[in-house]
């Protein structure tokens, strides 16, 4: 603790001993007392002493207080006192009571004290972690001093505390929760804490953004009334600025989160003239800065472009332009609005076009650009406003060839409009006004209309200015150089150097990279002597820059010289420099530009921002031009004429070589392209041939296939015809010769004949069958059922036959089709096709015949079969009839036998009758009654017959 002793020693009176003693006692009580109340009282006492005896309390009690924070977590009151005490010893802001009577040295020591105590506190990173956990305590008496303590620690040792918070788990998240606290004091102090926490630490900024900071801050801003809100809005805006400035990741998140759209209502301030409080001005200023952060020229072009697009699409740019044209807007807000609009339109074609279309609500309406330029060349306007307008004009023309053309056009004789004030008129007016600031601004503005635009450089050469009556008009270029060389009679306000620098920058921009303009410039005999005079003269300090710029202008005359003016060729100009100025001197003077203290400042960023009007000397775009040209001009001038000649010879030979080489190159290129074309052709042709070959093989295989198919069909056909007993020779139907045709005809006829033959046979057989049937049916009645069965079979066979024939026809049709299909692939002469048709006709006829034939054959076959079966039936029937006949014969024999027997018996009977008669006679004779007996006899006789028949039957 040597440093503390040192601090103590420096105090003249030294602390009151009682104070130190009391503090020591209190510390002991805090450390050793077992009673909470006791400890609490002691800490409270320390708190009350901590402002007056900051050093002592800090030195002696810090460790004890930290221990209280660790151990007495349950008592929010003691925690609050401890945190307050720590805050008092760490914080430097509380020294407000100290009056000016205290020395400044004292104040500085107090600052050191805060830093030293902070160092001591954060030596243990756990202390910060502890503090972060304490912030989770909802009690106001803990949270609020906790927030203040952490803010104070961050203020005094920002980076270190940030580092500790960053690595504490959930550290940043906990602090973000403060923004959701319902107690405004804590939320507002939370804002201040986050401001400190996010200062210059991209990692924390990103985490804070990740924790929905944008959403919450924008909501708070809206709740608090946007720009009309109080200091809380300002704090929110400052925090937003911290989060977005130089943090491309957060900017991207902001844009992607559609928060740009939420900024638009901020600028709906309009013409209500509700008064512009200081707070409102501050708020709006910060809001404008936020917009600028998103579209800053130092951002990556892509990021800026997408933000610019979003700002146009959501109407933010339009809203800003409304402010621009509104009345009653405070000057600094107007200035910042102009700067903001500048950056929102810079390099964005759509936004630039929109800006060009904005009109001021004046009568008659004038373009906003014109109104703004009027302010730029008006010396009564504030300097910053004029700078802002210049910036706006530059941004409008940045990468905007169309805009450049429109501005230059307002000066051209053909398009000039005498009735209204144009941008061009205002610029010319500014260029030749008596105010050096206007001269400078107008010159730079005009230079921006020519930047990287050869067309406009040449167009502007056409501009003629009317001078006093009776004198011929003079060109704008000439007028500029006249003012430079002769000086005008005007009694100028401001610095002459500023005017000269402005004009020289305009001339340099104008004639660089434009040989016609160089020629125009050199055409005036006075210009070169003036320049050499300026450069060679030994002028004062403030004219040095003018010398440098004159050297640059002369250098450009050499570098972009097309040697079309005899007196002022490159060579002659160089000789002039050598004679009149000296090369070394020239280069030295040229270097005055970049050595100027304001040069590097202007080179940093596009916005013209100068602390005082006198510092307004360099334009950003011009510094780029100088950078580009300085080296080249130095080289061009330093080379001696001989060297130059040699070099030029070398150059020429090189050029010749080059030209030869280029010729060859072109030739090669041509040949190359030819080769390529030929290669292409070759590949195309090979592919074509391949294609063709493949089609040929395909077709060949198809043909082969067709042939095979055809052969198969033919074979089938042949078989069929052979089966039918057709003797037709196997003629090549596929052959397309006429004699084959006749052959076919013959065959057809033959087939027909055979067909007829078969039909006759068939009828014969049919009749045979019917006769057989006729024979068979009556003789054999019991065989009819069998016959019907057979018929059914026959019918089945017939059906089969029909299906087969159908198949055959189908096959033939198929073949026909295939033949037809193969026709287009094979190149067939026209006459052959005729034959083919005939053949096809014949073939179809043939096939019809064959099918008929087939059908008939089948019928024949079935009929034959049925005949056979019938015959078989017949045979069996006859055999049965034979058996029956035999039986019949046998029976007849028996009948005959029995007849014979009967006859015998009849004979016997007759004999016996005879005998009976005889006996009767004898009886009669004998006299016996016989009548009854007669009757009896006859009856007996009848009975006998019956008996006989019965006998016969029994025998059988």
């Amino acid at each position: 603790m040597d440093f503390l002793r040192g601090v103590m020693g420096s105090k003249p009176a030294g602390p009151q001993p009682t104070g130190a003693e009391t503090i020591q006692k209190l510390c002991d009580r805090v450390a050793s007392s077992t009673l909470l109340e006791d400890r609490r009282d002691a800490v409270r006492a320390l708190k009350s002493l901590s402002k007056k005896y900051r050093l002592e309390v800090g030195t002696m009690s810090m460790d004890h207080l930290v221990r209280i924070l660790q151990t007495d977590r349950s008592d929010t009151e003691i925690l609050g006192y401890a945190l307050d005490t720590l805050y008092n010893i760490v914080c430097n802001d509380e020294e407000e009571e100290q009056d000016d009577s205290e020395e400044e040295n004292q104040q500085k020591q107090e600052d050191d004290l805060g830093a030293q105590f902070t160092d001591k506190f954060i030596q243990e990173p756990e202390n910060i972690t502890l503090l972060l956990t304490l912030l989770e305590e909802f009690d106001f008496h803990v949270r609020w001093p906790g927030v203040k303590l952490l803010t104070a620690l961050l203020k005094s040792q920002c980076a270190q505390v940030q580092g500790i918070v960053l690595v504490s788990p959930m550290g940043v998240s906990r602090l973000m929760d403060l923004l959701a606290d319902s107690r405004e004091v804590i939320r507002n102090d939370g804002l201040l804490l986050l401001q400190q926490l996010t200062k210059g630490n991209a990692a924390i900024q990103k985490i804070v953004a990740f924790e929905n900071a944008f959403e919450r801050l924008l909501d708070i801003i809206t709740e608090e009334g946007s720009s009309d809100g109080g200091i809380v809005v300002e704090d929110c805006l400052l925090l937003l600025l911290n989060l977005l400035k130089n943090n491309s990741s957060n900017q991207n998140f902001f844009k992607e989160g559609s928060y740009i759209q939420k900024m638009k209502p901020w600028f709906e301030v309009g013409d209500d003239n509700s008064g512009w409080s200081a707070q409102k001005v501050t708020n709006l200023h910060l809001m404008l800065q936020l917009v600028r952060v998103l579209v800053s020229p130092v951002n990556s072009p892509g990021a800026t472009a997408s933000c610019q697009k979003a700002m146009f699409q959501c109407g933010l740019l339009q809203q800003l332009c409304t402010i621009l044209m509104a009345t009653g807007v405070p000057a600094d807000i107007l200035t910042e609005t102009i700067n903001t609009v500048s950056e929102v339109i810079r390099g964005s074609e759509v936004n630039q076009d929109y800006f060009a279309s904005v009109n001021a609500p004046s009568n008659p309406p004038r373009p906003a650009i014109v109104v703004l330029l009027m302010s730029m060349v008006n010396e009564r306007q504030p300097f910053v406003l004029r700078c802002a307008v210049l910036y706006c004009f530059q941004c409008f023309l940045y990468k905007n060839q169309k805009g450049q053309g429109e501005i230059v056009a307002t000066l051209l004789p053909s398009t000039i409009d005498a009735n209204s004030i144009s941008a061009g008129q205002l610029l010319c007016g500014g260029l030749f006004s008596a105010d050096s600031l206007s001269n400078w601004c107008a010159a730079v503005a005009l230079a921006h209309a020519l930047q990287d635009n050869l067309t406009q450089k040449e167009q502007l050469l056409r501009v003629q200015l009317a001078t006093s009556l009776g004198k011929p008009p003079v060109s704008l270029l000439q007028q500029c150089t006249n003012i430079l060389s002769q000086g005008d009679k005007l009694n100028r306000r401001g610095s002459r150097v500023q005017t000269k620098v402005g004009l020289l920058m305009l001339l340099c921009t104008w004639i660089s990279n434009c040989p016609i303009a160089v020629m125009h410039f050199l055409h005036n005999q006075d210009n070169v002597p003036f320049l050499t005079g300026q450069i060679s003269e030994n002028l004062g300090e403030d004219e040095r820059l003018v010398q440098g710029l004159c050297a640059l202008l002369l250098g450009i005359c050499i570098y972009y010289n097309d040697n079309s003016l005899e007196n002022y060729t490159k060579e002659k100009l160089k000789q002039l420099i050598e004679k009149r100025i000296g090369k070394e001197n020239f280069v030295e003077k040229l270097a005055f530009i970049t050595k100027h203290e304001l040069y590097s400042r202007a080179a940093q960023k596009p916005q013209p921002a100068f602390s005082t009007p006198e510092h307004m000397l360099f334009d950003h775009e011009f510094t780029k031009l100088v950078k580009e040209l300085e080296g080249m001009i130095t080289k061009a001038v330093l080379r001696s004429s001989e060297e130059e000649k040699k070099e030029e010879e070398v150059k020429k030979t090189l050029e010749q070589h080059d030209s030869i080489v280029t010729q060859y190159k072109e030739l090669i290129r041509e040949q190359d392209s030819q080769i390529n074309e030929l290669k292409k052709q070759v590949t195309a042709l090979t592919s074509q041939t391949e294609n063709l070959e493949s089609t040929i093989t395909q077709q060949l295989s198809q043909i082969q296939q067709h042939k095979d198919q055809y052969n198969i069909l033919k074979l089938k056909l042949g078989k069929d015809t052979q089966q039918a007993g057709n003797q037709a020779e196997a003629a090549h139907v596929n052959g397309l010769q006429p004699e084959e045709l006749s052959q076919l005809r013959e065959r057809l006829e033959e087939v027909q004949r055979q067909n007829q033959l078969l039909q006759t046979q068939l009828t014969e057989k049919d009749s045979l069958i019917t006769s057989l049937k006729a024979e068979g049916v009556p003789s054999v009645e019991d065989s009819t059922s069998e016959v019907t069965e057979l018929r059914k079979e026959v019918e089945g066979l017939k059906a089969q036959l029909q299906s087969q024939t159908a198949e055959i026809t189908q096959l033939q049709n198929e073949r026909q089709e295939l033949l037809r299909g193969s026709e287009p692939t094979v190149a067939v002469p026209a006459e052959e096709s005729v034959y083919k048709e005939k053949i096809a006709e014949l073939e179809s006829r043939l096939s019809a015949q064959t099918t008929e034939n087939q059908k008939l054959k089948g019928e024949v076959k079935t009929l034959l079969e049925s005949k056979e079966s019938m015959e078989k039936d017949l045979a069996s029937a006859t055999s049965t009839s034979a058996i029956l006949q035999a039986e019949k014969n046998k029976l007849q024999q028996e009948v005959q036998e029995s007849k014979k027997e009967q006859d015998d018996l009849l004979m016997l009977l007759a004999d016996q009758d005879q005998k009976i008669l005889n006996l009767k006679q004898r009886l009669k004779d004998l006299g016996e009654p016989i009548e009854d007996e007669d009757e009896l006899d006859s009856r007996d006789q009848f009975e006998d017959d019956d008996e006989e028949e019965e006998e016969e039957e029994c025998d059988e």
Partner: protein
Amino acid sequence: MAYAYLFKYIIIGDTGVGKSCLLLQFTDKRFQPVHDLTIGVEFGARMITIDGKQIKLQIWDTAGQESFRSITRSYYRGAAGALLVYDITRRDTFNHLTTWLEDARQHSNSNMVIMLIGNKSDLESRREVKKEEGEAFAREHGLIFMETSAKTASNVEEAFINTAKEIYEKIQEGVFDINNEANGIKIGPQHAATNSTMGGSQGGQQAGGGCC
């Protein structure tokens, strides 16, 4: 642009496995063979469509280096989805998955959807980790798995979209508390307006108020 939901993602995994390239391929549809080491975290965003609904993905690509681990941990809690990436040509990046997963589970909300990604699938010849191993690891730890190539853009779209689908399903199932933005999910402005009776949340009202 209007969206129905907004999901916050983080991409985690060892250094050099291609996290930034995956993001670049997803947001810009391009591949940058040489990429600077990510410092801390970088942000990217894209709109996708799931189930006919516009969903905005806000993605924080974290640095893989150990020194940034403490910073990147701050992003776990507020994320609804995490892409845990390893390099199929470097076994060690696969071996470190357990550590990453433990870290993520410890610091994130329990519903965070984690998609395991084996990147550089175009470098088949240098493969050190089999696809099956990745699948097995994912199965074991309840993750979704996919092999991607930020170079050829293979499966990159799917990886981001499938993660979103999983989150979307969880929302439908009511697992996520969509009114708590700390979960990395936010209802879109127009959606919140139509669902005001259901949500009635502070966030929804604020979003509605802010958009007009």
